[in-house]
């Protein structure tokens, strides 16, 4: 019954209630400790008096919180970024082999030597009633380390959904570049064979850039797209069309003139049609895979790693909390004379308890808040670095899981802080006064 009600609530409400629940012990403790007292002037004074010690505690807490939440948020950002990069790739059809190799090659442009899909299979895809879009993805060449991929104009329009500048290539001498390639319409390039790592090996063919794609948040932002016909032609292979070809690039292709492609992107209008196509083309002769599903399986495999990271994050925070509490126990000795004076003047034990606990909580809460802000900055920074290194748009942002983690941490440490506060209120007044 409770489960039904809970899962019926909007997610935002669930998250808010969970946050409230996690902070409730802390708030309740605070109310019980502080009701009837004004601790602020004393706590502020103590913070000023012990400024460097306080700053050290705050820094410790902030660093541990910041690193922990950034770690967890970054892992999620990476997972979501890699998944988003695969959004445009509904179904990939390739020659039989490793799904992960095909995924890395077709979606993330990490090509390796994989067998080619033949013209007959490609023609079946072109003619299939359920197929809305099919495009070859012929990689293998590069320009200054940037992959040059042979495909069709339809694929460019599908990937970019309108160009940032210029137009899609229409001839074998034209190319379109990704948003992060340092080329613009009007520039020219000569591709090299392979990924360029074995030294210059230029083909004798020049492309003119005619368009630049919109940002896709994927490695395709760092790619150069050309007609597949030109890639075949450069390598001395049949160019996909019969003798009556009018040199207009794009499908349909003549199966007997189709030189082969490592992979093809396939798209159906409906999800069910994609699954139907996948089962039809997943045979001993061809392999059909959903990048989203393969990625989800990879992410599930990494689920254990994620758990370890979460445990590490929590352990870090617990260790810092222990260090802070140990420090507070020492601090209660430093504060002993002041607390003894208060009791000598007639302040109740609960006031001394309240002052000590409030002082500890001020340090912890300040550290946690700064830590959250630090986590936000770390996320921005690390995401920017990963994006620039991989071209995969990673946007790690703090979300409810991190906020819940910090709330739980603050609450737990707040409750543990009751012990040094209690011990501070039970010390011998005269001994401390005379010390």
């Amino acid at each position, binding site marked *: 019954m409770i489960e039904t009600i809970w899962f019926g609530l909007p997610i935002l409400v669930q998250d808010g209630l969970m946050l409230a629940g996690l902070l409730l012990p802390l708030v309740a403790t605070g109310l019980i400790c502080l009701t009837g007292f004004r601790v602020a002037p004393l706590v502020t004074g103590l913070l000023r008096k012990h400024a460097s010690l306080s700053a050290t505690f705050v820094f410790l807490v902030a660093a541990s919180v910041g690193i922990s939440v950034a770690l967890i948020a970054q892992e999620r950002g990476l997972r979501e970024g890699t998944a*988003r990069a695969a959004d445009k790739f509904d179904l990939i059809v390739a020659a039989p082999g490793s799904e992960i190799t095909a995924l890395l090659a077709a979606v993330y442009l990490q090509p390796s030597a994989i067998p080619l899909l033949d013209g007959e299979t490609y023609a079946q895809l072109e003619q299939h009633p359920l197929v809305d879009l099919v495009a070859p993805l012929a990689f293998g060449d590069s320009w200054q380390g940037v992959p040059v991929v042979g495909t069709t104009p339809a694929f460019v329009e599908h990937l970019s959904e309108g160009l940032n500048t210029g137009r899609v290539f229409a001839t074998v001498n034209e190319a379109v570049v990704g948003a992060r390639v340092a080329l613009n319409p009007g520039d020219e390039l000569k591709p090299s064979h392979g990924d360029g790592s074995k030294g210059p090996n230029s083909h004798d063919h020049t492309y003119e850039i005619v368009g630049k794609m919109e940002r896709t948040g994927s490695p395709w932002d760092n790619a150069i797209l050309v007609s597949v016909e030109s890639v075949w032609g450069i390598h001395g292979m049949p160019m996909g069309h019969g003798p009556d070809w009018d040199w207009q690039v794009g499908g349909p292709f003549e199966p007997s003139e189709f030189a082969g492609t490592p992979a093809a992107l396939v798209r159906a209008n409906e999800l069910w049609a994609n*699954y139907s196509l996948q*089962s039809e083309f997943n045979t001993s002769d061809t392999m059909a895979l959903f990048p989203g*599903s393969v990625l989800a399986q990879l992410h599930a495999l990494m689920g254990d790693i994620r758990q370890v990271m979460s445990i590490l994050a929590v352990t870090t925070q617990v260790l810092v909390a222990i260090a802070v509490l140990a420090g507070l126990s020492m601090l209660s000795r430093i504060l002993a004379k002041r607390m003894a004076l208060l009791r000598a003047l007639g302040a109740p034990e609960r006031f001394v308890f309240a002052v000590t606990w409030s002082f500890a909580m001020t340090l912890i809460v300040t550290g946690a808040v700064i830590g959250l802000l630090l986590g936000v900055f770390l996320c921005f920074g690390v995401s920017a670095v990963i994006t620039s290194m991989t071209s995969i748009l990673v946007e790690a942002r703090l979300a409810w899981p991190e906020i819940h983690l910090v709330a739980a941490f603050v609450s737990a440490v707040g409750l543990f802080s009751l012990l040094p506060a209690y011990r501070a209120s039970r010390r011998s007044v005269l001994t401390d006064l005379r010390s």
Partner: protein
Amino acid sequence: MKLVLNLLFSLFAACAFAGEGHSHDDGHDHEKPSGRDHMATLGDLRLLHAWASETEDSDVLVYVEIENNSGRAVTLLGAQADFAARTELVGFQSQGGESGYTRLPKLPISAGAKMILKPKGVALRMVGVDRHLHEGDDFEFTLVFEQGEVAMTGQVEAENAAQHSHAGHNH
């Protein structure tokens, strides 16, 4: 001595007989006295290895292998089960960094094709299950095709199972 040898030989034969239970192609009745049936047929449609993971959730994902050995396309519409309020045909989808199972209205399986319902792929979602499924349990359900219905028995595998425990076995 001869009696002992005969006894030993009989024992060996009995063990061999039990170990080769999988290679019988008329189901597993004699292998599993409880009557588990890993395979069902509907004409030239062969359905194998229906399974689900152990769970305490009220929604359960059921998977099965479908071999269309007929000469024409068939269409899977969904399923029915007494222990669930309703059953949906669902497919895994990842979009915008978010992923989950989306309802599918139907699933055509072309002639000669093999459709494997599996985690992070296509599945039958049993909604509002009225009992917890424990590893080792069986469950009965009916697959619904445009071309007809077929009852079969599924097996509950471990909570973190990725496939049927007999997956890959050619019956």
